[in-house]
C-alpha cells in the first residue's frame, strides 16, 4: 500500500517500486509475520539452542542456509515436477526428502568448518529437518502462489526473522542466567515467559505493512 501511494506521487520509477516491493516482503516476513513469534513455528531450536549467543547465531545461520535452499528447491520441484504431473499428494513427502538432504549437507559443512559449533549444536543440527518453520515456509510459498523470486525472498526473510529472534532471545537468556530467579521458575519456565513477552512485543509490528 505504501508502494502504491509513493508511486502515485510519481516520486519513484517502476524498478524502484519493485525493489521496494521485495524489501517489503523481507520486512514483513522477518518482523510482522515473524515465523517464530507470530506463526509459532520452530519453537524447538528457540528453546534448545538459545543458551549461548554464539550457538544461537550459528544455529540461525545454519537454518537460514537450509530454509533458503529448501524454499528454492521446493519451488522448483513444485513447478517442474509436481504440478505438471499432478502429483500434488506427494508434496509433503518430497519436500521433506529435499529438506533432509539439505540438512545432511549442512551438517557435513558445519562439521568440517567448525567442530566446536558442531559439538555445541549437537542433536539440534539434524533436527532442523523436523523444524516446522522450514517445511512450513516451503508449503506456504506454494499456498500463496508466490513467484520464484518472491518465494526465495520469502524463505530468506523468514530465516532472517528466525535468526533475529534466536539471537535476541539468547542475549536475554544469558542475562537471565545471572539473575536471582525464583527456584520454581529457573531455566525453561522463565525462558518461556520471556518468549511470550517478546511475542507480545512483536505484535507491535502488525501495523507496519498489510502483507
Amino acid at each position, binding site marked *: 500500500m505504501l508502494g502504491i501511494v509513493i508511486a502515485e506521487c510519481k516520486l519513484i520509477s517502476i524498478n524502484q517500486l519493485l525493489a521496494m516491493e521485495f524489501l517489503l516482503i523481507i520486512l514483513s516476513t522477518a518482523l510482522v509475520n515473524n515465523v517464530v513469534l507470530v506463526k509459532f513455528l520452530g519453537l524447538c531450536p528457540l528453546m534448545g539452542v538459545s543458551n549461548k549467543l554464539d550457538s544461537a547465531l550459528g544455529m540461525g545461520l545454519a537454518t537460514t542456509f537450509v530454509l533458503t535452499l529448501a524454499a528454492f528447491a521446493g519451488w522448483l520441484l513444485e513447478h517442474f515436477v509436481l504440478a505438471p504431473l499432478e502429483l500434488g499428494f506427494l508434496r509433503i513427502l518430497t519436500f521433506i526428502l529435499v529438506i533432509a538432504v539439505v540438512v545432511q549437507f549442512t551438517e557435513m559443512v558445519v562439521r568440517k568448518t567448525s567442530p566446536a559449533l558442531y559439538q555445541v549444536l549437537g542433536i539440534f543440527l539434524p533436527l532442523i529437518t523436523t523444524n516446522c518453520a522450514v517445511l512450513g515456509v516451503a508449503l506456504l510459498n506454494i499456498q500463496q502462489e508466490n513467484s520464484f523470486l518472491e518465494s526465495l525472498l520469502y524463505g530468506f526473510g523468514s530465516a532472517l526473522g528466525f535468526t533475529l529472534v534466536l539471537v535476541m532471545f539468547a542475549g536475554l537468556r544469558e542475562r537471565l*542466567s*545471572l*539473575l*536471582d530467579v525464583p527456584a520454581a521458575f529457573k531455566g525453561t519456565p522463565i525462558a518461556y515467559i520471556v518468549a511470550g513477552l517478546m511475542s507480545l512485543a512483536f505484535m507491535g509490528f502488525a501495523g507496519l505493512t498489510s502483507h
Partner: protein
Amino acid sequence: MKILDQMKLFKIRGGVHPEDCKNFAAEQGIVDLPMPPLLHIPLQQHIGAPAQPLVKRGDLVKKGQILARSQGLVSAPVHAPTSGRIMGIGGYPAHHASGLLIRTITLKPDEKDQWGKLPAVASDPFQLLPQQIAQRVADAGIVGMGGATFPSAVKLNLRKRYHIDTLVINGAECEPYLTCDDRLMREKPGDVLDGIQLMGHALGVKSTIIAIENNKPQAQNAMFNAAKDFPDVKVVGLPTRYPMGSEKHLVQTLTGKETPARGLTADLGIVVHNVATALAVHEALRFGNPLISRVMTVSGQAIKKPANIRVLIGTPLSHLVDFCGGFVSELERLISGGPMMGQPLPSTRVPVIKGSNGLLALTVDEAKSGEQMPCIRCASCVQACPCGLLPLEMAANIKAGSLDASVNIGLLDCISCGSCAYVCPSHIPLVQYFNYAKGELASRQQVQHKQGETKRLAEARTARMEAIKKAKREAMLKRKEEMKRKKEQEAKKQKEQAEKQQEDKVEASV
C-alpha cells in the same frame, strides 16, 4: 586572591565525595610516641621479594643499623628503628586482614636509642649522579609511603627505560580521616620540598607539580610559599573528590591523558611519588638516616584522642592505641589505612609497617554496614566508577561463577577504590566480589602453571623410563655380543690347540 599556580585541570569520570571527617585529627600537630617495650619488624613491608636477615638472635644492634638486606631487583632492606637486642626471628601476625604469620625480627629496645654508623652524606646531594641518588634511596629502604610500598629506588630508575619529563607529588590524601600528609606539609614544607627536588634531580625531570586537594588550604599555602623561589616547581590545587589520590586519576586530572591499561604513568612521561616518601628521601640524602619511622593518623570516633603521631616502624598498634587514650565507645571495626580502601585488622598485636598511614577505630554508626539487599540495577555504581567499568555486571557474573565473563568486561582495570560499594543503595559489598575474583583468577593461574609443570614432569619421567628400558635393552644386546665373541674365540683356541696336538703327534711318530 589566587595564591596557587594556575593550571588547566581535566575532569575524571565518576568518583564520590564522602564526608572527609578530617576534623578529628587535622589540627593535631605531629607528636612523637614514647618507646614501646618491644618492636616487631617484618621482613617484608614492601612489594617484591622479602628481605634476607643479616642478624641473628642475641645480636646487639644500633639505631639505623641494617637488619636485613634486599633480595633481587624489586626489594628493600630493613633497618633497626632503635638500639637494642635481637630477641628472635620468627613467625608473627602480619599487618594483614588474614591474620597469617610473617617472618618478623623482634627487637627489645635498650632505652639508649644510640645511632650506629650511618653512610657518609654528600655535602651537596645535587652534585651526585642520578643513579647514586637512587642507590642511596635503595640503601635507606625507602618505599612508597602512601600505602602502595613499591620500592622507591626502582621508581627513580624508571628514567633508564622511559622518557620522564614530569614529577608529580601526590599530596591529595583523598581518603577520609587521614591527615598525616596534611600535617607534614604544614609543619615541614622546606624539608619536603628538598626531598621533592632531590627526586626530581634523580629522575631528570623538566618540571615538578605538587598536587594538593582543595580541602587543605593551609598545606597548599605552606608548600606554595616554600616553592616560591623555584620556577620549575608548581603547586596546584585539586578538586576534592575521591579517588583523586589514585596515581592514574591524578595524572588524568593534571594532563587529561589516561594511562594505558596494565601500563604505568611512566608511559606518559610522568612519575608520581607521595609527600612522605619525599621527606624520607630528604632524611636519607641529607643525614644518611634510613627509613625507620613514619607519621600516622590515629582517628575515628571510637578512639579517645585522635592524633597524628610519628611512630617507629615495628611499634605494636596496641601501644599506639594506649597512647591515644584507648577505645572509648563500642569498637565496630579496626582499619589500617583509610575507610575506603583500608584493610580490616584482626587485632592490635600487629606492628606498624612502612606503608601504614592510618589506624581507624570506627563505631557502628561510622562503619555504616547496612543489611544487604538484592541489586535493583539502578546503575549508581556505574556513575560512580572512576575507571568507567560496570560494577553491577561484573558482580552479577562473579556471583554466577563466570569469572572469565567479568574479565571480558574489564575486571582487571578495577583499582578496588570502593566508590561503587559506597554509593550502592542496596549495600552490596561490590569491592569484595572484585577482590575475590582477582584472587581466584590469580589462584587459577597458579594452578595452570602447576599443571604445565606437572605435564612437563610427567613427560620427563616417561622419557626417563623409556631411556632406562632402552639402556637395558642395549646392555643386554651388548652382553649377548660379548658372549658370542667369547664363545667364538674359545672355539677357535680349542681348534688351534687340537691342531697343534695333532702336529706334535705326527712329529713324534716321525
